[in-house]
């Protein structure tokens, strides 16, 4: 791989790694502070777990890409780009359903969250999780026709 292309690829991978580290550290710190003050982390527990898992996933993926670049292989190619396109499209459709279900649950069960940001967090975390699951499934199945 040309040196210039290799350096550009490395810079993109380092950005990905930085994002993974940031998410992981933020969630770990938030969890530690919440537990230290004796607060109840259960309401946001699932969001924590999702965000932590995503942070770790991004980190591991970035390290794998870095290993590929060191070997002279590209971090992404036509197949990986196509997988991301298909996975994103699927996740978008599923996210619409997820948000509808969230709104229905609020109406049907009279769920009144303590703060609007709770609903927003649940929505965003759900969408991020759907994208991750969609990507994992599409990557494993190879079903991108």
């Amino acid at each position, binding site marked *: 791989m040309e040196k210039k292309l290799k350096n550009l690829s490395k810079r993109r991978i380092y950005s990905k790694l930085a994002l993974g580290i940031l998410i992981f550290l933020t969630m770990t710190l938030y969890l530690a502070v919440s537990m230290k003050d004796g607060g109840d982390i259960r309401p946001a527990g699932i969001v924590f777990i999702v965000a932590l898992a995503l942070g770790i996933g991004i980190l591991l993926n970035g390290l794998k890409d870095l290993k*590929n670049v060191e*070997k*002279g*292989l*590209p*971090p*992404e*190619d*036509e*197949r*990986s780009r196509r997988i991301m396109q298909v996975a994103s499209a699927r996740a978008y459709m599923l996210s619409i359903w997820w948000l509808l279900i969230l709104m229905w649950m609020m109406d049907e069960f009279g769920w009144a969250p303590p703060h609007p940001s709770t609903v927003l967090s649940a929505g965003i975390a759900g969408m991020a999780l759907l994208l991750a699951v969609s990507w994992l499934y599409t990557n494993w199945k*190879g079903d*991108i*026709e």
Partner: protein
Amino acid sequence: MKTRIKELRARFDLTQEGLAKKVGVRRETIVFLEQGKYNPSLRLAHDIARALKSKIDEVFIFD
């Protein structure tokens, strides 16, 4: 779609990684190609055939 990539790789003593490096793709792409789970673009099919010193229709067999 079936491929003869594995057989032709062995003929030229090429690893999956070696072939991936030659054609500029990730190793996982070669794995999925060999399993017949991915249909490559025309450009990639051409590059793989050239790397394996064969014609496209000798490497990729469409059912």
